[in-house]
């Protein structure tokens, strides 16, 4: 049975290759996480989180990252709220007001998928031109606007997925009772709340980690912005700018920023998976 044997060998080789591929993936995950944690934990301290950098971020030996932490929180918080306000109506409109095979819904989904694929550097460049057009300088406001644009497609795509699987029966039950579509929204909203939550977590993760777009629009500064028109520091840029500094203490700040960023993103990701798992369990 030569054929059977050669089949068996090919199967074994294929399996080995697949195991190797997965091992490589795990290797990458481990390597990245270990690098960030081993470098970051060594330099992490209370001062990092609570103090502003002293004497300029490129050269200052003293101080911490408070400017970047607060800057990131401002930008992410504001753009998440704005993103939700804009995305939820769009998702409802596509799923409840429009029919399933509507042309507009098709075009809209395509547009958001395309926007989702647009690189953040392009958003940054575009945001920059818009700001120049309106005579704005790099500022907190600019950062918020660009990050909002960046996360809207993520919001819409993720929520759309949750809403699309929404059972039509429930909608029809509501319509059958004489409710208008607008009133039916309340029913839907409660049902897809977990979907909204995951979408929000995903968007926050993306928003907090994006560097290329805020580089153009939010700028960087050593202090905490007190108005929308002042520039703001962000965590990813704190990593990026400080990593190339010749001064060890400044590089340490980059490692610390990377650690903070990674921990935040990991927490968001774990929570997201938790919600999805729980949600899908309830559904089955």
């Amino acid at each position, binding site marked *: *049975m030569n*054929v*059977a044997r*050669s*089949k*068996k060998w090919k199967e074994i080789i294929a399996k080995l290759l697949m195991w190797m591929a997965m091992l490589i993936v795990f290797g990458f995950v481990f390597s990245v996480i270990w690098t960030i944690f081993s470098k970051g934990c060594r330099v992490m301290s209370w001062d990092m989180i609570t103090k502003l950098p002293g004497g300029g971020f490129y050269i200052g030996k003293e101080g911490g990252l408070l400017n970047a932490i607060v800057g990131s929180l401002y930008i992410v918080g504001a753009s998440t709220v704005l993103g939700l306000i804009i995305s939820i109506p769009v998702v409802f409109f596509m799923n409840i007001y429009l029919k399933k095979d509507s042309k507009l819904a098709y075009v809209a989904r395509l547009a958001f998928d395309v926007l989702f694929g647009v690189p953040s550097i392009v958003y940054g460049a575009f945001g920059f031109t818009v700001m120049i057009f309106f005579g704005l300088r790099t500022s907190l406001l600019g950062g918020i606007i660009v990050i909002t644009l960046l996360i809207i497609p993520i919001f819409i795509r993720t929520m759309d997925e949750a809403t699309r699987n929404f059972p039509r029966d429930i909608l029809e039950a509501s319509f059958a009772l004489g409710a208008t579509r607008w009133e039916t929204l309340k029913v839907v909203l409660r049902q897809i709340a977990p979907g909204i939550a995951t979408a929000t977590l995903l968007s926050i993760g993306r928003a907090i980690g994006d560097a290329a777009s805020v580089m153009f629009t939010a700028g960087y500064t050593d202090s905490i912005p007190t108005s929308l028109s002042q520039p703001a520091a962000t965590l990813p840029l704190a990593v990026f700018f400080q990593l190339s500094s010749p001064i060890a203490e400044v590089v340490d700040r980059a490692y610390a920023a990377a650690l903070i960023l990674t921990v935040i993103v990991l927490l968001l990701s774990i929570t997201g998976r938790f919600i999805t798992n729980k949600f899908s369990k309830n559904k089955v």
Partner: protein
Amino acid sequence: MSIEIKNLNVHIKENHILKNVNLTLPEKQITCVIGPSGCGKSTLLRTLNRLIDSTEGVRLEGEVLVDGQDIISSGAEITELRRKIGLVSQRPCPLPMSIFDNVAYGCRINKMFKKRRQLIYHVQKNLKAVGLLDEIKGRMRTPAARLSIGQQQRLCLARSLAVRPEYILADEATSALDPISSKTVEDLFVSLKDQYSIIMVTHTLRQALRIADNVVFMYLGQVIETGSANQVFNHPQQELTQKYLSGAFS
């Protein structure tokens, strides 16, 4: 050359699907497995060629002897077993390739021919055996999905025959077809029974009446009665069988 099942138990997760099945399936005959839906007919078929393995949480106990070799014990070569036992499923399932490639698929997988000419001849022979060759003249290279559903089912049969099986399992092979194609496929099975041992799951009693040599009646995972068609249909021994045949439940 026969299939002998001894004390077969199949569990899927917490469910006991097949309970202590003992059966001998005679060769070169049509054996029809009948019974209400959910009684374990399909599971029985899927156990015979071990397709059941891909079901999540499945546990097999007992013995299934194919030509005297137990296929449940792990040493058995599954792919060779599956070649030997063809399957025609409920709905025709052409592979995403041309008509020719569909029939040639199994031959290529099992490296049956060295020369292309032999392969072409073999494919044509099997398409002819199911009466498709004339119908699809000149369309051998078109996608199989373009055939009508009845033709697709015959193609699937030709595909199974092409790997030279000894047994053919048919899982309600005519239930998705229109009456005319259904009749064609049914006649095909009858004409094939002097070359192959055919085990057929069906829930239309009339079909079993028409073509069965032997009948196995199953209920809730157990084999209730088995015997020649004449015996089971005309003189059922068990009360359950009588009830089922008279249409008391289905």
